[in-house]
């Protein structure tokens, strides 16, 4: 079970989080059908670092992007998203 550094709560056990999807497979609201379907059904599966969307569902309930190595599980970054994180 991984230790995820929530940007709001600090390091917390993975069991408090729910995985959503990779940043790659986010379907933008205005995506045309072809692009949307590619995002949904033709996903990357890199053997290495990837950006993933997680939610601290059983904690602060905030969403975040976790940069994780998919083999070693090393987490190099975890950044907040949502209205409060807008520049």
């Amino acid at each position, binding site marked *: *079970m*991984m*230790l995820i550094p929530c940007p709001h709560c600090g390091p917390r*056990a*993975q069991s408090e989080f*729910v995985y*959503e999807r990779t940043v790659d497979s*986010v*379907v*933008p*609201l205005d*995506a*045309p*059908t072809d*692009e*949307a*379907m590619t995002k*949904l059904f033709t996903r990357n599966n890199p053997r290495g670092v990837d950006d993933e*969307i997680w*939610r601290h*569902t059983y904690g602060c*309930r*905030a*969403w975040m992007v976790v940069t994780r190595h998919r083999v*070693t*599980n090393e987490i190099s970054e975890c950044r907040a*998203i*949502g*209205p409060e*994180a*807008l520049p």
Partner: protein
Amino acid sequence: MISFSFDGKVYTAQEGDTLAAALLRNGIGLVGRSFKYHRPRGIMTAGVEEPNALVTVGEGGRTEPNTRATDVFVYEGLVAKSQNRWPNLSFDIGSVFGLAAPALSAGFYYKTFFGSAKKWMFYEYFIRKAAGLGNAPTSSDPDRFSQRAAFCDVLVVGAGPAGMQAALEAAESGKRVILVEQDNILGPSLIRDGQEQDADWINATAARIRAANGLILTRTTASGYWEHDLVTLTQRLSEPGQVPQNNVAQRLWHVRAGQVILATGSIERPMAFAHNDRPGVMLSQAVRSYVRRFGVVPGKRVVIATNNDDAYKTAQALKEAGAQIVAVLDARPAPAGANSGHRVYNNATPLSTKGARHCLKNVSALVDGATLEWDADLLAVSGGFTPVVHLHMQAGGTLDWNADAQAFVPAASRQNVTTIGGAAEPQPIFKMASVAKPKKSFIDFQNDVTLSDVDLAWAEGYRSVEHLKRYTTLGMATDQGKLSNMAALGRLAEKQGVAIPEAGLTTFRPPYTPVTMGLLAGAGAKDAGAHVRRLALYDLHAAKNPIWQPLGYWFRPRAYPISGESLAQAALREAKAVRNNVGMTDVSTLAKFEVSGPDAAAFLEIICATTVSKLAVGRGRYTFMLREDGFVFDDGTVWRLDENRYLLTSSTGGADRMATHISYVRQYLCPHLRVSAVNVQEHYAGIAIAGPKAKAVLTTLIGEEPPRHMSTVPAVIAGVPVIILAASYSGERAFEIYIAASEAATVWAACEAEVMHIDGALYGLEAMEFLRIEKGHLVVGGEVDGRMTPHDLALDKMLNKAGGYIGASGLARPALAETGRRQLVGLEALEGDIPEGAMLVPNEGASPQGHVSAAAFRIIEGGSVALGQLADGFSRHDEILIASSPTRGQKARVRIVAPHFYDPAGERYRD
């Protein structure tokens, strides 16, 4: 003295004995029968790696099968039974399999029982009876299993000299330390190998660790190493089969450690020679443990076979205990062992053993090319040492090959873990020559795999170690190959003509030793397996003793039977009350979201596939939501409470999913919108009042004209502020009343008084189902099954023409507009009652063209009706089909009709 029983006979043991030690103390050599060939087996080791001496311990729900006799400490009244034998241990009919051993070699089942699956099912019954381990208990475990989370700076695994020293240093430097040891004493290897004064060192060191606030856990196994230095510990608070003192049998620890030190030591290897599995053949260090720790001498005339120095300590211990060392067979050339004082044969390797009455009688060996024999009742073997690298490997580490020890040792670590002591630096051994006669030379004792099975697999083309493992089942028993994997790897490398490290390794997976399923479940077993949420009005319902039905996380009343009614009778009475008069029900569990802000309408038009912005204040409408791939995933209603404030409802079962979806869209896709979307599902309780007299009831309750259909007003009932939504699921004029959950009981009581005053009824989910099926309303999880588009459900006319909602682009896929898709239809029975879940076929035996998603009866007129999904159903009205359910053994002839059996024009909504 402690008394225990084995196979029904009572024996005595000494305090501190393992069951294995106690059995040896009582001269019992034959303990079990092997898995495949039913060969007689005894005790081979003194630790968790024991492959042979598996017994069933305990009685009733506390029965623990396949317990290693070396890993259970005897307590007063312990009941143990041998396994895999019939009618008894010394005379076992299954042992004829041993005579057929050549036929039962590697891949036997694959080669023999091919053909149809039916045939295999037949064979399997007998194979399962003949092969195998102990039987699982049939009654549930009466004990509790607890779980605990812990944090420490340093976790030390293994309380040998190295582990204890490391724990001491860490604890005294101010670090939070946890030291775990799977045995029930500290320093078991030191007790085995050291001097008498070493026991004092152990006690003093443990006291200093505790004084420095270190936590020492014995009888605790570090069973798994997970991500980011999380280690799971399984702690036995009672022995297998024992009544626990505080009701808790075992505890599972989740320890997040800053640093992990593995001092896990090594496991001695057996040697491969013919009949090396006979009771009386034991590992050398195990023999030494029994002699020095338990005071049990497992043999009087002993032959020792070794390829290293360590076994001489065993010879010495045995000699001191009064046993006769007949011969030491040292694989190494002279002068190895020259000054030991024993009769040493160099260049000597064991060849075979003979037995009498299932126990060892004779050992033969090849000494400098000549065969010599000795009568002996104990053969202690030492084939080298395999470091326990399991946790290091589970943590993602790599291994190096130590040629002196002929063993893999930990190399790079991926996590913050280091290995010390014998696990890092195993004793050097002599590399032995290849075994010439591989038959009956067992390497995996528990799964009955011999060297000749490895040879056979090789001859049949199995080259990879992973294939070899699966084909021969080597290393796949409950001991996970702790004794066998290195022997097999050595043989495979020999065949490949490569060094062992090049032959590859199989994966080390948790748990290190078997873990009871109850421990993983912890407190979350039985009724606590899933959490239950109580309705705000639970007590009021429970007082009426309804039939309950699970829905989402909740239990909701399914019907309120009175005076001995059946479920069906009660539901029909309740539904009739709604059609003819008035009924009320608790709808609190519906998902509810309050969406507000200047961009609320824009946000809702992203979530919902229908238009929202055109709603006037005080009005509401039906709506539905799509997944990104264009399929309908939920439906509900949306209400404009105020200029920039909306209430959105959706299904109970999909509530969590919808909450996550709304949050994802808001937080990730639309962070720029000026909107707040709050989950108010449990903030509001809900009461629905439905029926031709619902309006009259409402008028009395709120003291004014209630809103017209699909309108909403704030109001006050019994002094409590409420929101009234004029919405209907039943097909009658109906109202949903939403109240702060804490005030719900007051409002319910007021409503119930009015409803009962005019002889109305409470109704439950079953009546609601009757009502909504007759009306043709959808249910998420029924008609909305994740495979239906808005068009398939005849909802496409409601789609927001402007697009922009989630799923719009997915819905544009050409395939979703093709013919042949299943579409929502009504079904009317011509003969018989329509079985729910039935398939729709043109004639018996034909391929299904659709299915029945919900079936009910016309509430007033009677007659079976249903909703279903049928290929091209919209254009097939009036066709006659068969609704056939082979699983229920029911069928009905049905006519395809429009999915509205009641008031299709919606006239009953009008006042």
